[in-house]
């Protein structure tokens, strides 16, 4: 554990801003949207007080925010932005370009539901809408992880073999607005962890053309190469996190709790903590918890290892994929199992849409029902809405 005495109380949003400040960021551009807004408010305070030497460009839309970030990133600058929900949806087009142009931008996404109806509360629908955009996608469980992962995100993004944008996700409100102890590193330690690597950039002396157009003769290769690089980013997670000065805060692809439980519960983000609490304080030794931190590239190999002893799996999605076979996380887990030749009963649980954060009672009820459903083995996949209509459906 971190030493409590060296910790400061920070919300998830404040932890983002503090990490970005320590990362010696050069350029920030963003547009206000709840629940992300506090991140850029803090950062603009840091910029105006001179605590960080950066340019903050308060643009007229999220589309322009990410566009400005791409321009800035192509000058060689260290670049940060953050958004939520509709803002992320507006960035959608530009997200593909950021990864295609290999811009190592770091973005914090305070995850929030998508309209309509309008809702400002937490769920993962926003980022799941862009899950194929070629970004590295990391999910943090609490403000401490937010802080640690933002710093490591810069190192991963700017790795010469990667040069890809990274989004660090934190649940809107439940993590972004929750104040918790965060142990922070010394400024100098962060700086030495984040060296500046040269990369192609816009300059008059070496005039290159960025954002060219590619005919069918070339496009396919670029896209397959980008996929390879994204997978390579996954391989490099261990290298960049091993170098992280605080060994407790290292970015892992997934972490496991209650190793010996027969039924694995897979979850991402803040609600993972509630499940952890339930397992720990209610003697649920039959269950293990897999807290997934890296969603893209999906850590299939590591997940198969973690599931090697499992007899059933519960996958918790805080988003739906209307019309799809399974919601996003469950479909990745199912595909991973299939690819590994593993046949496990799977319960796909959709929870927490629009900020309906599961209560402890709901989680306990879900686990209770899960055992029953998985044991029934009527079919390999069953589905559940947790919290829908106030209970378990």
């Amino acid at each position, binding site marked *: 554990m971190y030493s409590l005495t060296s910790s400061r109380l920070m919300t998830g949003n404040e932890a983002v801003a503090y990490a970005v400040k320590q990362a010696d960021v050069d350029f920030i551009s963003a547009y206000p949207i709840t629940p992300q807004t506090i991140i850029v408010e803090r950062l603009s305070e840091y910029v105006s007080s001179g605590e960080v030497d950066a340019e903050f460009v308060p643009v007229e839309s999220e589309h322009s925010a990410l566009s400005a970030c791409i321009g800035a990133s192509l000058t060689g600058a260290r670049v940060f932005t953050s958004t939520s929900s509709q803002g992320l949806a507006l960035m959608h087009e530009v997200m593909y370009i950021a990864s*295609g*142009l*290999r811009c190592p931008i770091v973005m914090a996404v305070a995850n929030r539901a998508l309209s309509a109806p309008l809702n400002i509360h937490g769920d993962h629908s926003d980022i799941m809408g862009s899950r194929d955009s070629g970004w590295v996608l990391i999910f943090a469980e609490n403000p401490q992880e937010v802080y640690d992962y933002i710093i490591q995100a810069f190192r991963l993004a700017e790795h*010469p*073999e990667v*040069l890809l944008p990274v989004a660090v996700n934190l649940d809107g409100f439940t993590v972004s607005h929750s104040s918790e102890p965060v142990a922070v590193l010394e400024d100098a330690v962060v700086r030495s962890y984040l060296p500046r690597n*040269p*990369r*192609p*950039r816009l300059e008059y002396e*070496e*005039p*290159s*053309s*960025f*954002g*060219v157009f*590619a005919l069918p003769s*070339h496009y396919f*290769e*670029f896209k397959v*190469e980008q996929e390879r*690089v994204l997978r390579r980013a996954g391989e490099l997670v261990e290298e960049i996190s091993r170098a992280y000065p605080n060994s407790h805060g290292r970015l892992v692809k997934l972490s496991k709790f209650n190793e010996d439980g027969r039924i694995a519960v897979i979850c991402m983000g803040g609600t993972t903590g509630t499940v952890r609490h339930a397992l720990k304080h209610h003697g649920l030794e039959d269950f293990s918890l897999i807290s997934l931190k890296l969603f893209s590239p999906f850590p299939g190999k590591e997940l198969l290892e973690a599931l090697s002893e499992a007899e059933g799996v519960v996958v918790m999605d805080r988003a739906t994929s209307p019309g799809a076979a399974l919601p996003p996380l469950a479909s990745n887990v199912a595909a991973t199992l299939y690819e590994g030749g593993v046949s496990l009963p799977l319960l796909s649980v959709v929870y927490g849409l629009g900020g309906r954060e599961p209560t402890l009672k709901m989680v306990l009820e879900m686990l209770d029902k899960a055992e029953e459903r998985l044991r029934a083995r009527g079919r390999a996949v069953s589905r559940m809405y947790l919290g829908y209509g106030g209970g378990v459906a």
Partner: protein
Amino acid sequence: MSRRPELLIPIVFEAGNTSLRKVANWRSNRPVIERRLCTNCLICWIYCPEPAIYMDNAGNVQIDYDHCKGCGICAEECPRKAIKMVMENV
């Protein structure tokens, strides 16, 4: 230190390398300069969309036939009518 990574990346590092592409086959008429009328005023050059017009070492205006698409602007705008459009041999 080179900034170019060893990666397939959609950046063109060789500035202005379209000059390696020949577009002469776009042309059905070619501009021909009548030397005795040409004053090397460069008007044809400033109005050329390519540019496929240049000055040689002697300071004489020349047509770059690898890159001229035969639009005819130079002939139209030459103040001395020193450029004629001539049908290409098929």
